[in-house]
Structure formats: C-alpha cells, structure tokens
C-alpha cells in the first residue's frame, strides 16, 4: 500500500488523521497546524497582554507539558512578551508525585522557565497522606480536588502572578459538559465552557488555551515532538472507568471523531440558554473575553483522569436526586405527599418536572460570589470549601490527639 501523502505539503508521508476534520497530515505540518490553532484560540479570546506574567499549572503530565512547550514556542514566535513560570502542586502523596515532580524539574530546564513547587502541607498544614490517614481513602479525592483548586491560585499569589493557565483540553471540557448535564448543574455548565474563569473580583484569573485541542492530538504532539512527560495514576484514586463520562467521550470519539468538539460547541450554546445568564460565550466578537466565576469548578480534578468522574461521585449524585425524588411521589399521590412534606415542615412548592412550553421564566439559581471569611479566597459561601474541610480535619486531629 503506497503511503498516503500529507494534504498540506503533498510531499511527506501522512502520519496523522485529524479527528476534527479527517485531514491527513505529515508530522511537521501537523505540529505547525496544532500550534497555529492554539495561537488562534489565544488571539481570538485575547487571553494575554504583552508583558503579562503567567503561571503554567504543571503536573508533569501530557497536557501541561504540551501547554508549556506550545506556549514557549508561540511566545517566541509571535512575540507575546509573556513571562512564563511553571507552577507545580505537591499534594504530599509519597511515591506518586516524586516522578512527576522530577519531570517538571526537567521541563523547567528544557524550557528555561522558573519553577515553583507549592506543597499542601505549606498551604494547608496537611499532606494528602495525612488526610488519608485521618479520613480513610473514601472521599479523599474531594479533599484533594478542593485543595488543588485553591493551591494553584495561592501559589500564583505567592509569586505575584495574576493569571494561571491550565492544560484542560477539549476532551476535558466535553466531559464536564456531559457530567453537568447528568448532574443537572446548569450554572456549572455555564462556567465550565468558558475559556477564562475569574473576574475582576478574583485576584487570579484562569484560562485554558488548549480548550479546543483534542486530547488525541495533544498526545500525538507530545509524541512527535518527543516531549518529556509522565503518566501515572494517583494511588488513592479508584479505577472507575466503567460508567464514567470519560469512557463515554472516548466511545463517541471512536464512532464519530468530531463528537468531542461538537459537545464543546453544544456546551457553549447550551450555556447561553441558561435562564438568567445573559452572557454570550463568544469571546472573539466582543471587546473583553467572556469570563465567568470559577468558584468550585473541576472538583476531583486530580491529574488522574479516572478520578475525575469516580463512581462515588455518580453515586452521591444519585443519592441526592433520589432524596429529592421523594417529592416526585407527589405527582401520583399528592395528598399523601403533601401531608408528609408538611410533617417535615417543608412547604416548598413543587413544580411539575417536565412540560410547560417555554420555561424562560424559571431562573436557575445563580451563585453570588463573595469571599471566604477565613482565608479571603473567592467563595459562594461564607466559609470556602477548603476551610470547611480543614475545620473538619483539624477537629479530627484534635480528637485523635486527645
């Protein structure tokens, strides 16, 4: 079989078939196109300004390694004038982060970028190993995710940096869109599709320059550029492939590769349909990039893909929904349920779950963002999630000590 030629240069052998448009490209054309597209995303969304200090959230994994490499290349090629710094979080899990952190250290040398490693112990007074010792393995991903969320921002603050970029790719965004549809969280759906999160109120803004890049192409980019990255599984994360939204995304990609970007597109469009949310996700036509509050996004967002949608998250969702469903009995036996809900001092009015032509009048509760009264971090509650969790942990420690 004669090798297929690259549709772009028409001279080299095609090595890549692009998921988004089936284009067959050779190695060097692919690398150029990949970089050009990230450049397009950066410029059309006006992610950066000249002279900006930007921290790259670096785990040593494929996504953040590719992000660092591409940003270095584009910064030099297009004269962004960015000051790039690698920022790594050490959760304090013995035997897990060691190799990843070694990889980041090599990356720092390869890309000539300064590296800052921030530990959970330094930030919170707890390593993940200590957390697990106290609460057990169950639910530890929640702690890790909540801590991580703030860790990057706090680390950036320590460095005097106001912008953190992360390696979230199109597959991640698509997965979040589907998860939020499953969990019925429309305000989070709206947030998760934004390329930039955080607004003038927050001290650190976040963005995802690889938002439109397929995970497949990120891996191929790393492979063909021979980038130095590390793959691992968190030793505390359950291997919950089954039933995970991640598995679903990959199956859809296999059936029709465009599906991943199509979900991202659908997610952005549906975000505009959330009542009470006037913003358009469009970033290229407007003057300022569309931003939305980060709040507690990406929970369970440890480097492990498995843990992003662990079975226990679905189980928790289901349990909560089932409790709400007790009300659904109402539909069938109104009188009985009414008396029950009265008994519970619960006289909320129940909407019929379905139906009702245009439901534009119903608004989805929007979170109002303030600042945590303890740590000052942006939060929709008086006390942010991290401080709540810490309070619990510290009580536990005190008890153990007694």
């Amino acid at each position: 079989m004669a090798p297929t030629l690259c549709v772009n240069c028409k001279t080299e052998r095609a090595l890549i078939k692009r998921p988004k448009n089936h284009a067959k490209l050779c190695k060097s054309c692919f690398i150029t196109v990949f970089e050009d597209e990230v450049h397009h995303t950066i410029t059309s969304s006006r992610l950066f300004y000249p002279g900006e200090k930007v921290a790259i959230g670096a785990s040593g994994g494929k996504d953040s390694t590719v992000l660092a490499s591409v940003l270095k290349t584009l910064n030099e090629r297009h004269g962004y004038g960015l000051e790039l710094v690698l920022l790594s979080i050490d959760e304090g899990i013995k035997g897990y982060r060691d190799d990843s952190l070694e990889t980041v250290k090599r990356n720092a040398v390869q890309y000539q970028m300064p590296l800052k490693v921030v530990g959970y112990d330094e930030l919170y007074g707890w390593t993940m190993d200590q957390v697990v010792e106290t609460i057990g393995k169950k639910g530890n991903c929640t702690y890790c995710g909540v801590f991580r969320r703030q860790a990057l921002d706090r680390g950036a603050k320590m460095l005097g940096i106001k912008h953190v970029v992360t390696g979230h790719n199109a597959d991640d965004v698509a997965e979040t869109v589907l998860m939020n549809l499953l969990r019925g969280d429309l305000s989070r759906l709206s947030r998760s599709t934004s390329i930039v999160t955080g607004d003038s109120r927050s001290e650190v803004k976040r963005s995802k320059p690889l938002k439109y890049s397929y995970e497949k192409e990120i891996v191929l980019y790393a492979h063909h550029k021979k980038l130095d990255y590390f793959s691992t599984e968190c030793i505390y994360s359950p291997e919950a492939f089954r039933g995970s939204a991640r598995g679903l995304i990959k199956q859809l990609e296999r059936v029709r590769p465009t599906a991943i970007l199509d979900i991202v597109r659908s997610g952005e469009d549906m975000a505009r349909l959330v009542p009470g949310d006037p913003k358009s996700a469009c970033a290229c036509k407007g003057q300022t990039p569309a931003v939305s509050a980060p709040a507690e996004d990406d929970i369970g967002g440890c480097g492990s893909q498995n843990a992003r949608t662990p079975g226990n998250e679905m189980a928790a969702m289901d349990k909560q929904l089932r409790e709400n469903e007790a009300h659904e009995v109402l539909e069938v036996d109104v009188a009985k349920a009414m008396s029950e809900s009265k008994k519970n001092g619960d006289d909320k009015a129940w909407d019929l779950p379905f139906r009702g032509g245009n439901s534009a009048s119903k608004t989805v509760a929007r979170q109002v963002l303030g600042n945590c009264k303890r740590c000052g971090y942006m939060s929709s509650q008086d006390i942010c999630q991290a401080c709540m969790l810490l309070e619990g942990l510290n009580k536990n420690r005190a008890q153990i000590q007694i």
Partner: protein
Amino acid sequence: MASAETDPPARPLTRPCVKCRTQEATLDSRSQPVCKDCFTKFIATKCIKQIGILGRETRPAPPPTGGPPTGTRRYLLGLSLGVSSTVLLHLLNENVEFQLAKGRNAPFELVVIHVDTTTHGGEAVGPSPGLGGAATPATAEAALARLRARYPRFTFQLVPLPTLTPNPQTTLTTIPDHTTTANHPPPPPSLGVLPQDLTAASLSDIRTHLTRRTLLSLAAQQNCQALLLGHSTTALAELTLAEAAKGRGVAVPWLVGDGPLPAAGDGEGRGDGVSGDGGGGGKGAPPILPPHLPPPPLTSPPLTPLILDPLSPGTTPAAVVSHKDLSIEQVMTRYFAEVEENYPSVVANVARTTAKLMRVASEDGEGCALCGMPLDEDGDERWRGELGIQSGEDGVSAAGMGFGGRLCYGCERSTGG
C-alpha cells in the same frame, strides 16, 4: 425507568410492594420493589395526566359565532414499533375506552404512523439503526395489521421516508395551530444528495431527523394538532446527550421538551407531545427505541406480540463488530443501560434539567434545511474560526445547497462525513 422482572418469591410478602404494601413486589422500579398492579397504575396515571394537559392545550377554539367549541382534537402518534411507542399506543387506547365507557365522547382522534427508514425511494438503505435491524417494510406492515386488529378505533399508516408532496411556500417545521390556516412544514429533503461515505453515526443522525420531520409534516397534512412520541425518561436523557454530542445543543430544549415548535414569523406553530412515562416526550424527538418502559407482558392480553423488536427491558445491546460502526444514539443507549442500572435518579434528572433551558428560535425565523431546528448565527460565526469551515454564498455550504438552504451546525457535521 428501570424495571426488571425478578424471580417470584417463595413465600408471600417477603418483599411487599412499597406502594400498596399488600401485594408481593415482583418488579423493581427505580430500585424500589413494586407489585405489578401498582406499577401499571403508576405508568398509566403518569401518561393520562400528560394526555390531560395536552387536551387542555389543544382545546378547540369556540366558533366565531359563539357557542361551544365544535372541533375535534386530533393527534398523530409516531410509532417505531418498539416498546415505548407501543405502550403509549396502548395507554392512549385505554384512555379513549375509559371515556367512552363513561358515556363521554372520545377525547381525541388518533392517527398512528410508522415511518419506514429502511428504504429510500424504493431502494433498501440498510436496517434502521433505531430498530436494531428488525423492521423491514414487510414485517412492519404485518405488525401494523396486528395493531389494527387490536386497536380498531385508530388509523394506522406505513409511510416510507421520502414520500411527501413538496410545498415550497413554507420555511419551517410548524404544525399549524387550530387558529391558523395551513402553514405546512416543508417536506423533508431527499437522502439522494448525501455523500456516499457517511459514517454509520452520521447516516443514523440524518435519518433520525428526517423521520421526525416526516412525522411533523404528516401531522400538519392530516390536521393533527400534536405529534406524540413514546419517549421514556431514559430515552429523553439519551436524546439530550446524543443531540449534544452531535453539536445540536442549541436545539436540545426544542427536541426534548414538550410544547410548541420553533415557529416562523407569527409564532403560531404548535406541537405537543406526551410520553409513556410522564416524561417530556415531545414532537421533536426521533422514534428511537428506549428499552426501559413497563414490560409489555403486564398488559392483558400482553403487548409483546405486537412489538416488532422486543428488546427486553434493561438489557444492554450485544457487543458489536467494532466500536466504530455504532451510531451516537446506540452509544448513548449502551451508556445509559449501564448508568441506569446503578443510578436511576441521575437518568431521571436529565430531562428535568433540559426543561430548564430556554428555547431560542432563529432571529429571522429560518430553520435548518435538514432538521428544521433553529439556526444559530452567533455560534456559527464564533466557531468558523475554530473549525476553519468554509461557507458559500449566504452561509449556505456545499452540503446545504443540496438541501436547498442553510444547515445548522449539527447537520453540517452529519452531512460532512
């Protein structure tokens, strides 16, 4: 709605029904043990309630001269010959029989239509993905004959996908309201203009949407005020995620929810739906086969012989030759079969969430030339850069030209390969 028959217990009331507490539970409904009577009652109650709401929404207008309304309600049921739509048919019939038994008039007339997607212009185009390859025109005709015998009050028709008389006057899938004069939706476009090498997923998507438009068009032609589809709660969840995965997020509220359709100009379009499970249902949705409705043997006589493709509830479709040859809908069905087993409430919540989204029509009222759903100019503008899509005159792509107009993002993707 998860429901699977369990082994009959050896002793009475070892597992009482959670609803009546007097009978032995023989079924699991959303992880709760229920007896057969309560379960069928539950399903019927939910359905009849929806029919009641629909009845109020389609109440005939009083004549201009005053006096009581004289018109009759008339609905079209899209029948895939699968479990859900057959159960819905049965419940609609029960509703009519019940009213007649009370000495009232029949609450509505019903036209039942099965769209044959296996042939196109007389040529076989492969098995219908929604029916697991079970239906051919011959088997479908035989199935309809059995249904005619069982439900003689209703009219049954078998319609091939493309046969509709063109009506160039119209631009949108609109079922005329009883207050408007005929404003027929355009006929679904022909399949002939599609590229030869479409993936199974794309072909399935196009067929699904053409089927829906055929049903809408027929509903208008036959003066029906609503199109009813037998979507279970699970099917609606699958539909939500499948349409999102096909890039039709902006149309999801229209496709999943009940109620009027995106209307051209004066906003007089109307179409309503109920589902067999008290869920949304709705006119927009394709007649895919959701396997999670009440087990047909519960009716008397059983519905099972009437169902062409009796997927037993709760079963996962068998492993396929390759992951690649599935449709997006099939991937979703497989996924939800797994999720539903463990997390039934999550499944039930999806359509509820979708119902909260706003329904936005195109600014100029123009619909996609293929699926008829609203066009989304802002979104298309923004994405052109991300995808490098080239468009022709007036934003009509090469594929769109074949369909005689602009296509929505989802249809561009499906016609592109």
